[in-house]
């Protein structure tokens, strides 16, 4: 696993996000504030006990859409740098699923940019998660509710 630096703004990886050294991403001496967001696998979602999560990614489009989002943040907010990495594969409770960083001279911009990136990534990047539960079939999150469940009515 190599640290992604330079022009890469968005990354997908099947490797753990723990213990990475991101210092180079904001080594710019003008940087006064660095805001990060880590999304981790929770042990519950709504009323269900979650045991693990599978992330599936449409890689080509996820990379272009993710990069576009980070570039939008760089254009919208007065920040020095921004970056996002998302996991794919099977994750356990507590594992880091996504990491976002925004750095700026003044902290307000880094907070806004970091929040913008995670909000947009969740809404727009083609990544799906299948939640596994205790004693229930796993489901693809956000797909279950919009499915028409026609099988349930067939008798």
């Amino acid at each position: 696993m190599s640290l992604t630096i330079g022009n890469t703004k968005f990354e997908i990886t099947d490797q753990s996000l723990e213990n990475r050294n991101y210092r180079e991403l904001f080594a710019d001496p003008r940087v006064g504030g660095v805001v990060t967001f880590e999304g981790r696998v929770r042990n519950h979602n709504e009323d269900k006990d979650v045991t693990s999560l599978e992330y599936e990614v449409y890689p080509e489009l996820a990379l272009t859409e993710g990069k576009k989002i980070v570039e939008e943040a760089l254009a919208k907010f007065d920040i020095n740098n921004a970056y996002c990495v998302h996991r794919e594969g099977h994750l356990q409770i507590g594992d880091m699923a996504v990491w976002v960083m925004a750095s700026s001279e003044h902290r307000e911009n880094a907070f806004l940019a970091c929040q913008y990136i995670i909000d947009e990534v969740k809404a727009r990047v083609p990544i799906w998660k299948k939640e596994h539960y205790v004693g229930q079939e796993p489901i693809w999150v956000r797909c279950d509710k919009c499915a028409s469940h026609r099988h349930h009515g067939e008798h």
Partner: protein
Amino acid sequence: MKTINMSYFAFFRDLAKKSSEVVSTQAGTPKELYQELKLKYDFNLCPSKLKVAINDEFKTFDTVLTDGDKVVFIPPVAGG
């Protein structure tokens, strides 16, 4: 008839039981193509909840399909 390279992800991959296939179709748009696949694989997500990518770019459901296009139907995303 045109040839379309389908890729299936997540919810649709589970239903289609495959991650890609080549389909021969008379569908002129993703909208028509989805109706065909819905019958074939019991795809039960409302089209209003979906997005579609053609050749790895988001497109509308009434984009004209071209022979050899790669098409992906995108169920509601849930990253993060």
